[in-house]
C-alpha cells in the first residue's frame, strides 16, 4: 500500500498546541507511508486539492487525514479521495482536534498523542479494502402506527402524495388524545370540531387502509422492504355489517362498565361506539363487562342489532402487510400519578388528573359539561391546579418538562371561570412555560381577565380537612411564606410518558427509547424525525412532549421524509457491513442468535450449513464479529485484524 498522511493545522485550532510538522515527520516513517504533509486547512478547497494532487503524484492508494472529528468531515474527505479516483472507503481519519488539541495545552504530550493517533489510523488503513454499495428495490407503501393527530396528519399527507398508507390504531377509534379534549389553547376552540373533519378524511381516503382496534405484532425486514404483522383484536361486532346506529348501546343492560374514553370519570355500557364522532363509527364489546360473554346470559345486543353484526365468538386476526417505511406516532399516556401519595392521588376522589378534568369540562363527557365533584356531585367553588405532578421531579425519575401542562392549565382555569362564574381557581406553578404563538398572552389573560390566582410554589401535601373539603399546603416562594388553601377540587397536571407498550414497540422497530418511554430521534437537532433504523420515522408526542401544532407539523415532516425516501426507486446500503468467511464458518449459530437486526441467516452451501449476511439488512454494528469465536464473521473496516493492528500499535512492550 502507498499511504499519504495529511496533518491538518486547522489554523491554530490544532497547530496551536500540536507540532503538526513534527507529527508529519514522524508519520512519514510509519509503515507504508510514502508521503506526509501538514496543510493549514485540509478541509478547505486548497487542502483538498493538496490531497488530490498528492494521490496523483505519489500514486497513493490510501489516505490518512489527521484533523477534526470524523463525525464532522469524514464525508467531505471521502468525496475528496473519490474525486481523485480512489475508493471512498480508502480513507481513515485521526481526530487530533477534539481529542487532542482542544483538550490539553501541553505541546509535547499533544504532539506525541497526535502521532500515535496517526499511527493507529495508518495501522487500520492498511487493512482497508475498497468497498461498494449494493442497491435494492423499495416497496412504496407506508405504515403509520397510531391514529392521533400526528399519525392522522402523516397518513393524510402521505396518501395525498399518492403513497398507499396502512394506519394502525390501538383503540377502537382514531383521534387520539385530541379527541378527548374539550377545547384547545390559546384560541379556546372546540377540539373535537377541528380534529373531527381530519378523522373523516382518513376514513374516506382511498389510499388509506385503517386498522382500528389493532396492534403491531411483529416487524421484520429493512428499509424499503418491511413485513409487518398486525393483530386485529376482536370487537365482537362484525364491522362490515355494523352501521354505528347505537341501538345495541341503548339496550345494553350492563351499564356499569368503566368508561376508558372518559378517563374513568364515568360509566358506560358494555357495547358501545366510543364516542359520537368516532372513526370508524363501529360498536365494540368490552368482553369483561358483557353479560353474555362473562356469564353466558343476555344476548340483548345481538337481538336488537338491525344488521345482525354482533358476534360473541369473534377471534383476533393477524394480517400481514408489506411496506417500505414506517411512521411511529404512538403518542403518550399519563404517568402513574398514584405515586403522589402526599396529594392522595388515586385515594381522594376529588383529586383528579387534568385529562379527567378535560372530560368533566367536555359536553360529551360524563357530566355533559357541568363541572361537578366526583365525590358528591357538588359544584366546586375553590379549585386548585397543581403543576408539574410527575414532571421536573427527579425524585421519581421524571426530570423532564411535560411541555404543554402550563398552557392547558391556563385554559382549564379560564374554562372553569366560564362554567362556574362564582368559582375561584388557584394555580400552583414553578415556572410558566408559554413559548408558543399567543401563548404567554393567553396566560396573562387568565390572570388579568379571569382572575385566576397564580401562586409561585409547589404544594407539599393535600389532605381532607374532615369537613368535606381539602387542605392544600403550599408555598408562595415569592413572598417566602407557606400558604394554605381549603379547596373543593384539586386538578393535577400529571406528567406524560411514552404510551403504554412504547418500549415493546421500540424493540420491534429496533429503535431506542428513553427512561420515560419516548422514542429517540436520530439526532436531537438535525434529525428530529428520523430514527437510528433507516426508514422508521417519528411523529408527535411519542418522541417527546409537544403540543398539537407541533405534532401536526411533525406529522407532515415525516410524510415529507417518506415521500423523499420513496422518490427513488432503488436504495443503496452502507457497505461497511459484516461478511462471513464461509470456510471458517462452522454454523454454530451464535451470530444468528444475537444479531439485533435478524440480518444473518443460515444457508446451505454444498450440503453444509453456513451463516450468511443479508447485505441490505445488516447495519454494521459488528456484534456478530465480536461473537463469532473463530472469527469467521468480520465487519468490513472494523475487522479483528484491523482492531488488533490498532491495539498492537499502542500496546507493545
Amino acid at each position: 500500500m502507498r499511504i499519504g498522511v495529511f496533518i491538518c493545522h486547522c489554523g491554530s485550532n490544532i497547530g496551536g498546541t500540536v507540532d503538526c510538522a513534527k507529527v508529519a515527520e514522524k508519520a512519514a516513517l510509519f509503515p507504508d507511508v510514502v508521503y506526509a504533509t501538514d496543510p493549514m486547512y485540509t478541509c478547505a478547497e486548497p487542502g483538498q486539492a493538496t490531497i488530490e494532487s498528492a494521490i496523483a503524484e505519489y500514486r497513493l492508494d490510501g489516505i490518512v487525514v489527521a484533523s477534526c472529528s470524523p463525525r464532522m468531515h469524514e464525508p467531505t474527505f471521502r468525496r475528496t479521495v473519490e474525486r481523485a479516483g480512489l475508493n471512498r472507503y480508502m480513507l481513515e481519519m485521526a481526530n487530533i482536534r477534539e481529542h487532542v488539541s482542544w483538550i490539553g495545552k501541553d505541546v509535547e504530550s499533544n504532539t506525541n498523542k497526535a502521532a500515535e493517533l496517526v499511527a493507529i489510523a495508518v495501522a487500520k488503513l492498511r487493512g482497508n479494502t475498497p468497498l461498494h454499495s449494493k442497491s435494492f428495490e423499495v416497496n412504496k407503501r407506508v405504515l403509520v402506527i397510531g391514529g392521533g393527530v400526528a399519525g392522522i396528519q402523516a397518513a393524510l399527507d402521505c396518501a395525498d402524495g399518492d403513497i398507499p398508507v396502512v394506519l394502525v390504531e390501538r383503540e377502537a377509534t382514531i383521534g387520539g388524545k385530541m379527541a378527548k379534549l374539550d377545547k384547545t389553547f390559546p384560541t379556546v376552540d372546540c377540539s373535537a370540531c377541528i380534529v373531527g373533519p381530519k378523522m373523516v378524511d382518513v376514513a374516506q381516503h382511498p389510499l388509506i387502509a385503517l386498522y382500528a382496534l389493532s396492534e403491531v405484532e411483529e416487524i421484520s425486514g429493512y428499509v424499503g422492504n418491511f413485513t409487518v404483522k398486525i393483530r386485529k383484536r376482536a370487537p365482537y361486532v362484525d364491522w362490515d355489517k355494523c352501521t354505528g346506529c347505537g341501538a345495541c348501546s341503548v339496550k345494553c343492560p350492563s351499564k356499569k362498565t368503566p368508561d376508558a374514553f372518559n378517563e374513568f370519570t364515568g360509566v358506560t355500557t358494555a357495547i358501545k361506539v366510543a364516542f359520537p364522532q368516532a372513526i370508524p363509527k363501529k360498536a365494540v364489546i368490552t368482553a369483561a363487562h358483557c353479560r353474555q360473554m362473562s356469564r353466558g346470559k343476555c344476548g340483548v345486543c345481538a337481538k336488537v342489532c338491525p344488521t345482525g353484526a354482533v358476534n360473541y365468538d369473534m377471534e383476533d386476526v393477524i394480517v400481514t402487510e408489506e411496506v417500505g417505511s414506517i411512521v411511529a406516532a404512538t403518542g403518550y399516556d399519563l404517568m402513574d400519578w398514584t405515586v403522589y401519595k402526599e396529594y392522595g392521588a388515586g385515594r381522594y376522589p376529588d383529586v383528579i388528573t387534568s385529562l379527567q378534568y378535560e372530560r368533566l369540562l367536555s359536553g360529551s363527557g360524563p357530566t355533559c359539561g357541568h363541572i361537578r365533584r366526583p365525590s358528591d356531585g357538588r359544584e366546586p367553588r375553590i379549585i386548585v391546579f397543581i403543576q408539574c405532578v410527575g414532571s421536573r421531579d427527579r425524585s421519581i425519575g421524571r426530570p423532564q418538562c411535560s411541555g404543554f401542562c402550563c398552557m392547558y392549565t391556563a385554559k382549564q382555569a379560564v374554562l372553569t371561570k366560564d362554567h362556574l362564574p362564582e368559582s375561584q381557581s388557584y394555580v400552583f406553578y414553578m415556572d410558566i412555560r408559554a413559548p408558543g404563538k399567543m401563548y404567554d398572552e393567553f396566560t396573562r389573560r387568565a390572570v388579568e381577565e379571569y382572575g385566576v390566582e397564580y401562586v409561585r410554589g409547589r404544594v407539599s401535601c393535600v389532605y381532607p380537612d374532615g369537613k368535606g373539603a381539602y387542605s392544600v399546603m403550599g408555598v408562595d416562594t415569592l413572598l417566602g411564606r407557606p400558604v394554605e388553601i381549603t379547596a373543593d377540587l384539586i386538578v393535577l397536571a400529571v406528567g406524560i410518558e411514552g404510551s403504554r407498550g412504547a418500549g415493546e414497540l421500540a424493540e420491534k422497530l429496533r429503535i431506542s427509547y428513553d427512561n420515560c418511554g419516548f422514542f429517540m430521534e436520530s439526532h436531537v437537532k438535525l434529525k428530529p424525525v428520523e430514527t437510528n433504523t433507516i426508514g422508521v420515522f417519528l411523529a408527535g408526542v411519542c418522541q417527546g412532549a409537544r403540543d398539537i401544532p407541533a405534532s401536526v407539523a411533525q406529522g407532515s415532516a415525516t410524510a415529507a421524509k417518506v415521500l423523499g425516501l420513496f422518490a427513488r426507486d432503488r436504495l443503496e446500503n452502507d457497505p461497511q457491513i459484516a461478511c462471513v468467511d464461509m470456510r471458517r464458518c462452522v454454523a454454530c449459530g451464535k451470530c444468528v442468535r444475537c444479531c439485533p437486526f435478524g440480518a444473518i441467516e443460515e444457508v446451505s452451501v454444498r450440503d453444509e450449513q453456513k451463516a450468511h449476511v443479508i447485505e441490505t439488512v445488516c447495519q454494521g454494528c459488528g456484534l456478530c464479529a465480536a461473537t463469532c469465536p473463530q472469527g469467521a464473521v468480520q465487519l468490513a473496516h472494523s475487522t479483528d485484524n484491523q482492531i488488533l493492528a490498532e491495539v498492537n500499535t499502542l500496546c507493545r512492550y
Partner: protein
Amino acid sequence: MPVLEGKELRIVGFLCNWCSYGGADAAGVGRAVQPTDLRIIRVPCSGRVDPIFIVKALLNGADGVLVSGCHPRDCHYSAGNFYARRRLEVLKQFLPVLGIDEARFEYTWVGASEAQLWQHVVTTFTNRVHALGKAPRFDAVEPLLKIADMALTALRPLGTGKNAALPKLKEAIKAKLPELECVIGWQQGYDEARTVPLFARTPQDVDKFVWGPFNVNNPAVYLPTFRGKKVGIVVKGCDARSVVELLQENLISREDVILFAMPCEGTLDMARIGEKLGRYTTVDAVVCDEASITITADGKEHRFCMADFAQGKCYGCATPLAALSDVSFGAPVDVKPVSATPPELALLDSLSLPERMSFWRGQMGKCLRCYACRNACPMCVCRDYCVSDSRDPHWMSQLADEREKLFFQTVHAFHLAGRCTGCGECQRACPVGIPILALRQQIGRVIEQLFESYKAGTDPAAAPPLLTYMPQEKNIHERGWK
C-alpha cells in the same frame, strides 16, 4: 509504541462511534481539559468490542482500558450495548484471576451530548490508573508454582460403581445398536488401570464396554463430529451436561442422539494415581471393593480410596446420573448442590494479584501449545478453524511466549463463557498439568453470580447468557462516576 516516559501511562479506549465518540468530540468542542493519556480506538458499537481485545491490550502493555458506549436502551443498533454490558462485566470480574487488577478496566456509557460526563470519566479513570501505576509486565514477574489442595469432602459418598448394571446396559445398547451409527462409551486402555473411549459398532464391540471410576473421558466431545448421523452415547452425569449444552446451542440435534445414563459414583484423578504408581512395567491386577480400588503393579499393591483420589469435579458433583437420557439405569441420587469453590479456583483465590500473575507465568512456562486442552473440550466449536493459529484473524503470535500462551487460555475461557459445564477435560488432557480449569471456573462463577445462578448444560431450552440480554440487568450494577 512507548508511552511518554514519566508523563503518561498507556490507556486505551474503545468508543462507540455514535454516542461516546460523539461525547468525546463534544468535550473537545467544549474545550473540556482532560488528561492526555487516553488513546481512542473508534468502533461502530460497544457490542463490537470482543472482550479479548481488552485482554490482548492488558497483556501487551496497556495500563488501563476503557470501553464506552451508548447508554443502555439508547444503542444506535438497539441492542449492541446490552450484549456488551454482559460481556464486559464478565470480563471485569474475570480479570483478577489472571492477576490483573480489575480497576485497570472499566466500561461506561456516555451519550453524544454528555461532554462533561466524558471529561469526568476520562479524568477519573486516568487518575485511577495513575494511582495504580504502571501495570506489571507478565513476562517480567517471577514464576511461582503452587499446588491446589485436593483434600476435599464429597457431597455424596464416592464409590467404584462395582455394582453398576453393566450387563443390562450392554443389553440395552445391543438392542438399539442396529439403528445407530455407533455407541460411544469406554473400554480398557493399554493396561487395566486405564480406560479409553470405545466406539461400538458391533455387538462384539459392545462386550468391551467397561464401567467404573477409570471412565474419565467425556464422550460428548465426539458428538458434533457425528452431526447428521444417529449415534448412541453412554454418559455420566457430568458428560450429560455437555450433551445438553450442545443441544442448547443446536450443535447436535436431539433426535440424532440416544443417551444411555448410568449413575456415576465418581471418577479417579489419573494424574494423582499415576504419581503414586510411579514407573512400572505391568499392571498385574485391579481389584475394587465398594469404596476403594487396589492396583497391583510390578507385584506391588497400591490401594486408592475413592474419597481421596477422585477428580476435583467429583467432590462437588450433585448430578451423578444424567438429567437428560433416553435409557437410564439407576435412580437419581438425592444430592443437595452446595456452592463450593473448586480446588483449582480456591488456590487462586488464596493468592494475591501479583502472586496470581506469577502463578500463571510459572504454569504457562510449561505449555507446548499442543492444544490437547482445546481438542478435549466438548464445547470447542471452532475445531479446525481455531484463532490460535490463524492469520486472518491474526490474534496470536507463534512466539513461544508465556504471554501468548496465557492469552490463548483466556480466549478459550472467553469462548466458553456461559457454555462451559466444568467437565474439566481441558485440564485433564494437559500433559504438563497446567490447572487451566481454574480460568473456566472463574468465568463460570462470575456467570453464575451475574445471571441468576445460570449453569451451562442444565436446561436444553435455556439461552446461553452471553448470547442474550435483559434491558434491565438484575445483578449488573454499573459503577457510577461520582
